[in-house]
């Protein structure tokens, strides 16, 4: 057996092991089935044992993780506790959302919903009085409008503090030169900042199936990487260029706060790029499984309880496995062109369709509906995404140098943003 196959089977059974534990399935039953499958398919005893061990390790790791990261606080009871703001606060149009880490004697993370003002920032140590409630799904704990006393202390990491304030200054540059609606959309595209979207726009994004554009997904990151890659490729060798842009993405991830979702997007974006550069299917397969295994090592809850995680992997699997099939089908059987066209719309359509095809069961299962217009909406927008993001990036960089130059760039960017917002609202309203 080849090394890459071993790596695949072992990491895959680790993932399955985590799945067993989080769904509280009968471990022995699953292990028996796995052993049977292995015996029929391969039959080598040693590797069979390794696979079973890895399965056991996954299952064990899930429980181990939970005993280590225990949440320790009473529910639905008025308590006073000390906590540190642990993430970048989301200051929306109507309220603020803070994720805080509880300090001793309590432990765990809760989310606070507080009024817009006073504004809080990352790392602040607060004394909070309120009732912690569990959300309906049981995955989130929150406190609504608690009484907060600011101790004036800061318990955050210095690096993150600096990076957050750098990001904030870049976002400010966007809002200085574009009207609110467009500025909010652009900061969603570039930095994944969604807090300032109006309710009606969020609904439109959802109904038109375009939310992924502003989720700072693997897609956005791969655009950034491809864009930078071609700039670098102009100066250096192709391979060097690729690694330079990967380095840049890592820096970008730290800047946006290195939050879980962004890290995931970056890894996915890079995997996606690798898969495009490298046509050997087994390496893509391994890259996907290994990425998933590493992410689950960091947080095993993702597999079963995080829709974002599931959707991004489903979409990636769709792109890697379903897209070539669809393309073949179109070209061979239906004799239709599957490439080219204005702004490469055929390929965009194909990509959207394959990603959605793979994500369809999850979307239906989780949200209970599917946006019938999303294919059309995405095709009309996706072709313009790279240029929009590039111009937006130029606007931000010019904003660091000169307000007036940035204003001109913003005007051009605004034309694209305006068109995209129009399409999103149009299909959002049709579908509602």
């Amino acid at each position, binding site marked *: 057996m080849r090394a890459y196959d071993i790596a695949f089977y072992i990491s895959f059974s680790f993932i399955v092991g985590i799945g067993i534990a989080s769904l509280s399935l009968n471990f022995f039953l699953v292990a028996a089935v796995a052993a049977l499958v292995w015996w029929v398919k391969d039959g080598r005893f040693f590797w069979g044992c390794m696979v079973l061990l890895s399965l056991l390790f996954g299952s064990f790791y899930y429980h181990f993780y939970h005993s280590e990261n225990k949440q320790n606080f009473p529910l639905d009871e008025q308590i006073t506790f000390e906590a540190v703001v642990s993430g970048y606060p989301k200051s929306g*149009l*109507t309220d603020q959302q803070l994720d805080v880490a509880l300090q001793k004697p309590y432990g765990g993370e809760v989310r606070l919903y507080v009024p*817009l003002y006073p504004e809080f920032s990352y790392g602040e140590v607060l004394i909070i009085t309120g009732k912690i409630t569990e959300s309906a799904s049981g995955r989130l704990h929150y406190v609504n409008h608690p009484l907060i006393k600011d101790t004036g202390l800061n318990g955050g990491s210095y690096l993150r503090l600096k990076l957050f304030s750098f990001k904030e200054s870049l976002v400010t540059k966007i809002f200085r030169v574009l009207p609110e609606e467009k500025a909010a959309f652009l900061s969603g595209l570039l930095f994944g900042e969604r807090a300032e979207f109006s309710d009606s726009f969020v609904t439109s994004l959802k109904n038109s199936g375009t939310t992924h554009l502003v989720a700072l997904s693997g897609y956005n990151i791969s655009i950034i990487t491809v864009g930078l890659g071609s700039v670098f490729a102009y100066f250096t060798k192709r391979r060097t260029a690729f690694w330079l842009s990967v380095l840049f993405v890592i820096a970008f991830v730290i800047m946006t706060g290195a939050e879980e979702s962004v890290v995931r997007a970056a890894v996915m974006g890079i995997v996606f790029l690798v898969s495009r550069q490298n046509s050997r299917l087994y390496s893509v397969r391994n890259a996907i499984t290994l990425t998933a295994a590493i992410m689950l090592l960091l947080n095993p809850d993702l597999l079963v309880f995080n829709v974002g995680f599931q959707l991004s992997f489903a979409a990636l699997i769709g792109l890697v496995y379903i897209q070539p099939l669809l393309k073949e089908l179109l070209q061979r059987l239906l004799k239709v062109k599957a490439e080219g066209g204005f702004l490469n719309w055929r390929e965009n359509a194909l990509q959207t369709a394959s990603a959605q095809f793979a994500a369809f069961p999850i979307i239906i299962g989780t949200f209970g509906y599917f946006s019938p217009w999303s294919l059309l909406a995405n095709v009309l927008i996706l072709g313009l995404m790279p240029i929009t993001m590039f111009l937006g990036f130029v606007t931000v960089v010019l904003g660091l140098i000169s307000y007036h130059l940035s204003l*001109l760039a913003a005007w051009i960017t605004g034309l694209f943003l305006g068109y995209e917002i129009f399409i999103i609202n149009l299909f959002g309203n049709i579908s509602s």
Partner: protein
Amino acid sequence: MKSLSSIYLGIFLLNCLVWYWVAVGGPRSYLNLYFMDIGQGDSALAILPGGVKILFDGGPDKSLLNDLGKILPATDRRIDLVILSHPQADHFTGFISLLDRYEVSYFIWNGRQGETESWKSLASALKEKHVNTLRLMEGDGIKYRESEIKFLSPDETELGDTELNNTVLAAELFSGGVKTLFIGDIGFDVERRLAGKYDMNIDILKVAHHGSKYSSGDEFLAEATPAVSVIQVGKNTYGHPTKDALDRLAAIGSAIYRNDLAGTVHIEADEGRLNIFKER
């Protein structure tokens, strides 16, 4: 050679753009009033003939930024006057975010301190941005070309009232050939005093207190007789606008516009003629 000419073309096009801004960006000769759809709270923008921009109240959150972004071009980041009726959160909170994104020349208020945490944020933002502040009350006024604002309340006793709704800095705007009255959240008592003391006869009324049943009394409406009444109201638990208030407004034959139904209400007033646009 080819790239050179495309650079020239690019510069030429950008020039056209800048001159286009200069050409269409000039002030209008009539009054533009926008009663903005900012949820449960008050916020209205008046652009006077000649271009001066006045913002009456800021609404309960950052929503006004969305509306201002749609009304004003992206390059226009100055509000000349900001007038706060009274220091309650659904009237001033939006100003805090406004100060982040717009340059405000004057902040005009009644001098009464607010009692909430967010009021402190507004006070420090005003200080930090070095905004000129002016305390005005009944009898004061502002003139700009043919337009004028007269402040009708509060008097000394009202200003000291424990009920913040009675401290409202009520403003009567004469512009575009019409009279518009902004009265914040005043109730029956202040309404009665104003109706007794002043010749009210107005054209456009910003209905008091989001259509509360303790405002817009018969006596006051009989004196004011607004042709158009705008109710600034959004989703709320108080039952605003109340049937009582709506009935009384209907009884005097006033045309009623509500932000919760119509979205932002835009009124153009030119020599006494009104054009009214609803966003939805």
